[in-house]
């Protein structure tokens, strides 16, 4: 057992967990943040994506201990109260989800993509960059539309700040 100290969605957190605990299990089982999902055993599906120090990573493939001392953001941490993050709003408006299982990971990955590319995103880049996220429902088309729409909204939101 070890005590892991980290920041999750802006709050300092300290948890006593076994060393073999994966970050995703710390989030879901110890901190009850069940928005982050587990969809595979092979690090391939991306439903578990969260940000560690601003980078989109698969939390099923990071030990809780590796994340100690860092700043973790999950799907629960991106809206401002009742106001959805522009990426969440774009997914809703463009029907970017059906069952919603992949959606938290899709949104966390997509925010990272927009952060890296800014206004230079095109459809081909979005499709290439979403390779680490699998969706069994939508056929991706509306997900790609959502990300491109959100890229525009995030630019406007940044300009307003």
């Amino acid at each position, binding site marked *: 057992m*070890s005590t892991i100290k980290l920041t999750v969605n802006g709050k300092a957190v300290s948890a006593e967990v*076994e*060393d*073999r605990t*994966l970050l995703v299990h710390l989030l879901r089982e110890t901190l009850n943040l069940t928005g982050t999902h587990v969809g595979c*055993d*092979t*690090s*391939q599906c*991306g439903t578990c*994506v969260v940000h560690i120090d601003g*980078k*989109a*990573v*698969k939390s*099923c*493939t*990071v*030990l809780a*201990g*590796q994340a*100690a001392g860092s700043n973790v953001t999950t799907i629960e941490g991106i809206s401002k109260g009742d106001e959805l993050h522009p990426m969440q709003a774009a997914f809703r408006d463009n029907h970017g989800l059906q069952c919603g299982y992949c959606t938290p990971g899709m949104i966390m*990955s997509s925010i*990272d*993509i927009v952060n890296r590319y800014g206004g230079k995103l095109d459809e081909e880049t979005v499709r290439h*960059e979403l*390779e*680490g996220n699998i969706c069994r429902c939508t056929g991706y088309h509306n997900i790609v539309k959502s990300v491109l729409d959100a890229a525009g909204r995030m630019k406007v939101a940044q300009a307003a700040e």
Partner: protein
Amino acid sequence: MYETTYHRPSSVDEAAALFAKGKEAKYLAGGHTLLPVMKQRLASPSDVIDLGKIKDLVGIEMSGDALTIKAATTYFDILQSADAKKAIPAIVHLTSVLGDPQVRYRGTIGGSIANNDPAADFPAAVLALGATVKTNKRSIAGDGFFKGLFSTALEDGEIITAISFPIPARAGYSKMRHPASRFALTGVFVVKTKAGDVRVAATGASQNGVMRVPAVEAALKANWSAGALDNVTISTDGLLADIHGSSAYRANLIKVMAQRAVTAAG
């Protein structure tokens, strides 16, 4: 995953000492091979020693004729490196088609070559460029580093500290990606050295892991062009055959990927 004890040393010496003390210790870098394998219970190290936070193991340096990438440098950092782009753009291209964005944020060059997966990308770059693998004990020539499937010249507990790539006159990499795993169905790295030598390595193709391809090297040495390979035949001896492709398919891929790599190298 079985129980284990996690350590986060801050120096290479401390890591090596922890390894020596552990019953069945393993180093952890990006964790994007080791953790999936531990989850499948195919590995059950008593101690997991994290190299990822050791400052001396992260960074990219240019010095004279070589580009040196320290072992725990992530793929993402390689993609960001202006030095790497300038010195050996083929390495940056290889990194951009490796895995997916999340894998590239975590995975490291040292983890990739220590693991020596027969379909991994970086072993091809190390072998074709004739890189030197530096460890906490010695320097190992790229030609003698890879020893077949998932095995290398590393001794128990030895830590890769950096990989030093001589800057070539030209280099290119082309890979046929497996559409689900993104590993190489076959990938070929071609190099023309500053001394005029030609070195070519293929990954994903052979039953023994990464290999040189003498037939392609000879043809390109005589004439550095994609067309020079039109009439080259690659032997199917020792090539992989599985549900993804026969050995004849892979032999043809070696040629086609080599042609594309030469075109990319210019």
